[in-house]
């Protein structure tokens, strides 16, 4: 085959590809939504995911059949979070907005100061042992209230485990909904946060102003 033939072949292949369009399976196309709905009906959708806008950038929401299982800030890397969900829960993951309608709506209301507590089924399967115990404690921390890492450690029955409480917060699979942003340093400064220090400060301000 000569060089001209190769160039001509490439041009023909390009035309051929254009003659069989695939725009109907581009991201967000109705056909993909129908696939996700059918997967849901047939019990094959282990994890539904959806991205929403927030004052803190895009948030990835994921729900297992048991409930909301993951909320992720953009800085965690949404691709990395999807890989984590595939490894730890199931690779049967699809964009499926409907399963996450309630979570998306309640988060919107929360950011708009129209909601003080979330009424969602939560799935804590990504947190284990003491970390999970910490998250259960955090769920009792009311809107606008803060607690020190030391106080949460005491409440979770391990007063010496202050650093472990910090680590449980740093690995909280459900930030915002399980309010690790309400846990602050003993000196009253906000401390680290999954969504960044600025986001933590803004959340505390949002709740204080309401």
């Amino acid at each position, binding site marked *: 085959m000569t060089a001209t033939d190769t160039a001509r072949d490439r041009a023909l292949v390009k035309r051929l590809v254009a003659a*069989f*369009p695939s725009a109907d399976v581009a991201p967000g196309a109705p056909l993909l939504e129908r*696939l996700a709905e059918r997967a849901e009906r047939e019990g*094959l959708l282990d994890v539904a995911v959806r991205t929403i806008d927030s004052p803190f950038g895009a948030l990835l929401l994921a729900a297992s059949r048991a409930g909301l299982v993951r909320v992720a800030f953009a800085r965690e890397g949404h691709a990395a979070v999807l890989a984590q969900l595939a490894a730890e829960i199931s*690779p049967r993951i699809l964009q499926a907005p409907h399963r996450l309608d309630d979570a998306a709506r309640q988060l919107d209301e929360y950011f708009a100061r129209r909601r003080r507590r979330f009424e969602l089924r939560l799935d804590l399967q990504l947190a284990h042992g003491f970390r999970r115990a910490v998250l259960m404690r955090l769920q009792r921390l009311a809107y606008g209230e803060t607690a020190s890492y030391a106080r949460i450690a005491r409440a979770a029955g391990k007063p010496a485990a202050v650093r472990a409480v910090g680590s449980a917060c740093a690995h909280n699979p459900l930030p915002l909904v399980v309010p690790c942003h309400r846990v602050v340093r003993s000196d009253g400064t906000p401390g680290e946060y999954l969504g960044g220090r600025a986001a933590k400060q803004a959340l505390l301000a949002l709740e204080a102003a309401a």
Partner: protein
Amino acid sequence: MRQPFEEIVAEHGPAVMRVCRALLGAFDAQDAWSETFMAALKAYPRLRADSNVRGWLVTIAQRKAIDQLRTAARAPVASDVLPELAGASDAPTQSDRALRSALDTLPPMQRGAVIHRYLGDLPYADVALLLGCSEAAARRNAADGLANLRARIRKEHR
């Protein structure tokens, strides 16, 4: 570790759709595509982690397309109707139509080789598996198919 299925759809969905369209002509490619990805989703957790995902998907698509053609043969529809490509935003041009009809008139092995190699974007080893021939034969059929395709559309332009 297995890739999230969402990424499988994004990465391979378009090529599988092209293959479905090319294999099915006037029949419902969207249906074959959906059946393919539902079957794939079902089997996905059992797929070996080092598997060739594109080849696996196109194998399923080929099977679904054959199923659909068999069903359609029992309930014939007007075969002179050109595919409408429902839902595809880029409307086919006259020359797209000519190219698609030309593809359908190729000898079966050449047609299959062109579809899998160039629309499915598969390596010749996979094309050979799909067509049940040697890799050398797959390569030859793809090249001959392309040459014949060019000859046929040139003839039509005259």
